[in-house]
């Protein structure tokens, strides 16, 4: 395309369970060239594999059906391309379902691109070492449920070149879903590392959706955000040199300020000079952030150097089960009654499970999130015992739930509000794979 006109790209989801209604509003009023639904993390890709093992037709994002039903008609009307990794562990099933929805909605001719090839379980060898911890794949005594390489813009651009209206993949790297349409629109070579670095900054700021428009930010009295309940998703107005203005729709809640942009600039970034993606070694260290009027913030001076030779792979392992259960105590002495309950559970669980399972006992209101950090509050009169156990053996989780529930009659005074649940546990580790071993494919399906 090699266009010099600005490119308007929005975000319609920043994680698997993000809101839908502001995404509809954004496409209807945002005059967007493209919208990205980023719906995959280390946690969600692993669980998607579990879903696929249970049912070969599933393994894609649980909200895909409702999202596509809502978005396909408005995207077609607005001429907005939709790019997403909602395919998770099963992009083919997600694309086929999307085509079926498009047909039901009468959107004849809609082109859906299915990107595959991120599943690298057939090519990773057992002796492959882990990326950021000791050991290698074969050392883990748990069954592998999935292995996905992070795919980059080079996997997405061919889908866009083929004229796709909707691009669906699995482990598409978050910023690559933004960098790819920008590169194609502006005619940037994927080897032009400074430009791809700039496009990657745009993607990085946008990929978590409302985290740049006031979400994950409000701290009342210190950092106030207007109308957070109606927060809008972000828009990036990108120019040919890769600089951009981050903004949102008028009338949507939230705010875009230098502070919201700063916090997102280094979100999940380690060395700002070396942010690795499949596309580039991005350099955010000299990025400038300037207010340009209400809810408009200009970002520029991102750069980058050569892309890494190896791609990151997330490996999910079947770790059995996690059980979680709780009972609450309130009023005078609530804390000491809760502490007694915690002691009882620890004593009895030690006899039941020994060292065969991991156990954690917290007292919400006194010591839970910051328990390991060693911080405790005192004087709480409304506390909740929270017990968690992980085991390959479901019976350990069941035994813990029973123990916590039994506290209602045989524990401290005034205990109430028992809840307990057991869920599947997938643990993940990362490794690296030579880029040449990963071969992404694109198939266009037409409604």
């Amino acid at each position, binding site marked *: 395309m090699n266009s010099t006109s600005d490119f308007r790209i929005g975000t319609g989801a920043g994680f698997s369970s993000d809101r839908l209604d502001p995404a509809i509003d954004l496409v209807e009023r945002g005059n967007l060239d493209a919208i990205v639904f980023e719906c995959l*993390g*280390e*946690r969600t890709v*692993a669980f998607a594999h579990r879903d696929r093992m249970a049912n070969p037709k599933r393994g894609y994002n649980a909200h895909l059906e409702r999202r596509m039903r809502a978005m396909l008609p408005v995207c077609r009307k607005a001429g907005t391309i939709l790019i997403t990794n909602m395919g998770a562990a099963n992009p083919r099933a997600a694309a086929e379902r999307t085509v079926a929805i498009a047909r039901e909605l009468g959107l004849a001719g809609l082109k859906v691109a299915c990107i595959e090839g991120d599943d690298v379980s057939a090519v990773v060898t057992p002796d492959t070492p882990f*990326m*950021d*911890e000791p050991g290698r794949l074969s050392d883990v005594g748990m069954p592998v449920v999935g292995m996905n390489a992070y795919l980059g813009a080079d996997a997405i651009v061919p889908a866009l070149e083929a004229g796709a209206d909707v691009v669906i993949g699995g482990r598409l790297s978050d910023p690559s879903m933004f960098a790819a349409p920008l590169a194609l629109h502006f005619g940037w070579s994927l080897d032009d590392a400074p430009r791809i670095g700039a496009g990657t900054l745009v993607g990085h700021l946008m990929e978590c959706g409302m985290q740049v428009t006031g979400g*994950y*930010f409000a*701290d009342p009295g*210190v*950092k106030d955000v207007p109308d957070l309940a109606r927060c809008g998703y972000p828009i990036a107005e990108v120019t040919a040199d890769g600089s951009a203005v981050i903004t949102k729709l008028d009338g949507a809640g939230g705010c875009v300020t230098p*502070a919201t942009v*700063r*916090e*997102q*600039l*280094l*979100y*999940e*970034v*380690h*060395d*700002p000079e070396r942010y690795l993606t499949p596309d580039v070694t991005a350099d955010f*260290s*000299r*990025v*400038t*952030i300037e207010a340009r009027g209400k809810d408009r913030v200009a970002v520029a001076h991102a750069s980058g150097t050569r892309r890494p030779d190896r791609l990151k792979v997330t490996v*999910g392992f079947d*770790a059995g089960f*996690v059980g979680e259960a709780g009972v609450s105590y309130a009023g005078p002495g609530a804390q000491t009654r809760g502490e007694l309950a915690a002691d009882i559970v620890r004593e009895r669980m030690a006899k039941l499970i020994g060292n065969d399972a*991991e*156990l*954690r006992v*917290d007292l*919400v209101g006194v010591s*839970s*999130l*910051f*328990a*390991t*950090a*060693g*911080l405790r509050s005192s004087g709480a009169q409304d506390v909740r015992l*929270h017990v*968690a*156990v*992980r085991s390959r053996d479901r019976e350990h989780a069941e035994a813990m739930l029973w123990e916590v529930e039994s506290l209602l009659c045989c524990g401290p005074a005034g205990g109430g509000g028992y809840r307990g649940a057991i869920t599947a*546990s*997938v*643990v*993940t*580790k*990362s490794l690296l794979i030579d880029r040449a071993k990963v071969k992404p494919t694109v198939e266009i399906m037409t409604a």
Partner: protein
Amino acid sequence: MTVRANARIVRDIAHARAGDKGNTSNVNVWAFDPKDYDLLKRTLTPERIKRAFPDLIKGPVERYELPHLGGLNFVLHDALEGGVNSSLNLDSHGKSWSFLILGLTLDDTGR
């Protein structure tokens, strides 16, 4: 931990956000007023942060500086109790770790 009731804390001059990759947490911290960046930098050394939470942060702490934006980025290795899919903490992502650092006193003789 003993904190004087009127002790100023990092949250009085800065804002922060936490993120996770595997078992590594990062917390970026930004001075509201550029004039406070030097105080922030002086107070929040990697050694101080490691010393404040020895049981949580098992690995090294690295600090990256973005002076033109008034920001510091702390990388806390082996600090997520195994990471999002392994930790039994209710907050298995360590989303709340930003408030661990915001709760530190500006007088670094305390916690």
